[in-house]
């Protein structure tokens, strides 16, 4: 039981847009520690919607969600923010970085927010991850002055800074060329194999999915295979 990182049971979501549009229908699954899971499915089948719910950012759904054994459903916003900060690393399709801060500071921010380690330690940690991802030479640069592939690696380093329970990604390679996509995939594989990092990645790319431990396939708001 303690092996379970994330547990979704009977999650459904309906958008009320003039007419009711059911997007997710009774989704239940569980992710265990160290798993590298990919979510596949046609465009519009509800992958992103599901991921936003699992990441606690979207709270408007039916069913229940447990992260690290703690029930997230109907928790106050402040606690959800804490959980996101401490336990979830998020990588977006578009590399969301704060242009006001240097690359290094961007990576450090969630660590400073968590405030468990000294600033010095957090900085060393950030530099370590930047080094692992091969972009330590960019640490002093502003994010708007580096390439898309580099930005995505900075975002991965930021997701890793608090040693999260799970990393979630919504098409993190969707906006990258072949070469950079492979690079990111390799990084995820390395994190999974060497650091036993749990990952949940939404992707369009079947090739990407074949390199993961486990594939969840969705269609029309339902899981059809896992």
């Amino acid at each position, binding site marked *: 039981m303690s092996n379970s990182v994330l547990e979704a049971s009977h999650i459904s979501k309906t958008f009320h847009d003039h007419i009711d549009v059911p997007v997710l229908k009774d989704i239940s699954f569980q992710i265990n520690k160290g798993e590298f899971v990919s979510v596949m499915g046609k465009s519009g089948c509800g992958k*992103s919607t599901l991921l*936003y719910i699992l*990441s606690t*950012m*979207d709270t408007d759904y039916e069913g229940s969600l447990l992260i690290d054994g703690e029930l997230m459903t109907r928790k106050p*916003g*402040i606690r959800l*923010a*804490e959980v*996101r*900060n*401490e336990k979830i690393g*998020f990588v*977006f*399709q*578009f590399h*969301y*970085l*704060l*242009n*006001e*801060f240097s690359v290094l500071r961007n990576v450090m*921010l*969630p660590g*400073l*927010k*968590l*405030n468990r380690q000294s600033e010095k330690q957090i900085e060393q940690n950030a530099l370590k991850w930047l080094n692992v991802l091969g972009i330590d030479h960019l640490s002093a640069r502003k994010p708007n002055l580096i390439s898309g592939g580099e930005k995505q690696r900075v975002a991965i380093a*930021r997701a890793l800074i608090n040693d999260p329970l799970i990393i979630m990604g*919504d098409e993190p390679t969707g906006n990258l060329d072949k070469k950079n996509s492979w690079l990111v995939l390799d990084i995820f594989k390395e994190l999974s194999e060497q650091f036993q990092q749990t990952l949940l990645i939404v992707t369009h790319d079947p090739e990407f999915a074949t390199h993961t431990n486990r594939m969840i396939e969705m269609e029309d708001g339902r899981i059809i295979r896992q």
Partner: protein
Amino acid sequence: MNYKLNIEIAGSLLLARWKQTLVAAIGVTFSITMFIALLGFMTGLNKLLDGLILNRTAHIRLYNEIEKNPRQPVSRVSMYKDFYNFISSVEAVNSREEIYNSEAIIGAIRADKRVRGISPKVHTPAFFNEGNIRIAGVIDGINAREENELFHFYDYITGGSGDDLMTIPNSIILGKPLADQLLVNIGDQVYVTTPSGDIFPLKLIGYYQSGIRDLDKIQGYTSIVTAQKITGKPPDYYTDIQVKLNDLGEAPAIAKEYKSLFGLQAVDIQTANSEFETGSSIRTLISYVVGITLLIVAGFGIYNILNMMIYEKMDSIAILKATGFSGRDVKIIFLMIALGIGIFGGTMGLLLGYLLSLLIDAIPFHFSSLPTITTYPVNYNPAYYVIGTLFSLITTYLAGMFPAAKASKIDPVIIIRGK
């Protein structure tokens, strides 16, 4: 709560848009500068104008009024009780202007703890002689030093020394226009005719200029002893007792008390000068209204820049929220930005306001009524600086509150989806 981190983020957002934030801050600076300078100048002027009256007016003036007895003999006759009577040409009962038992009254008032000081006076009409022409005027016998302590007498002496009045016997100080009219200079003899017809030579030792020309044209000051001598009265003869209190506000009540206690006429300053306070308070009110209006305008400036910043920084807010900053953190960050603008703009405003006050204070200003004044009056009351600070903080807080609340409610999912 990690305030240091929130401050760092607020600071970075501020600096990233430093030109716009500077403009917003300049709005605050401008309004606080104007607020400080305007209030300082206005209240400086108020003080000057009030001082014109307040400095020289007794809080309570005690004197004996020549009046008819309210109970005439006819009203004591019981058979005319139900009748109404008219009496013409009633003789006044107290034919003397002097205050009876003056020494005892002065002693009693001096012992009163509410009283700051008193200055008794001998007032007499007199004629000033210039050749064949006699100019009607008044002479006040005063204790120059007491008069100065209570009514800043020396401030209005434009030539000679007020102290000499007490040391040089048979000396007189004349209003400057009166001295000019009499063609006398300091050191010359002035011939005074008393109401009883005697002529006294007095030595002119100084000029007096109150700022009210009509008053200066008839006014002369001597020592109490000299005044008693020229009127031919004994040393306990006084016509007025001027009282200054510790608290001006108590004047009406104490005046009433003295009136019944000593059986004298007692006029308090509020009754004597009822209009001057209204003028002051209206000028002060206008200054506050102008200052606050400017601040509200500055507040809208801050509101605008924050709203703009929030639209620009939607993505950043979404990232902060996705990486674990709560709505409350975001709200605090934007409030800090607003307060940062307010504190910076406000501090600059206080500084510039002070400098502008110094500048106004240095502008030459000659006021014929007040020879001691050479530049515009400015009031450096620290209270205005405190009020200015409070106002700038409150307006920036209010201006920041709504945008900050809006920023805290931004749904990261909508932003991230929108890309």
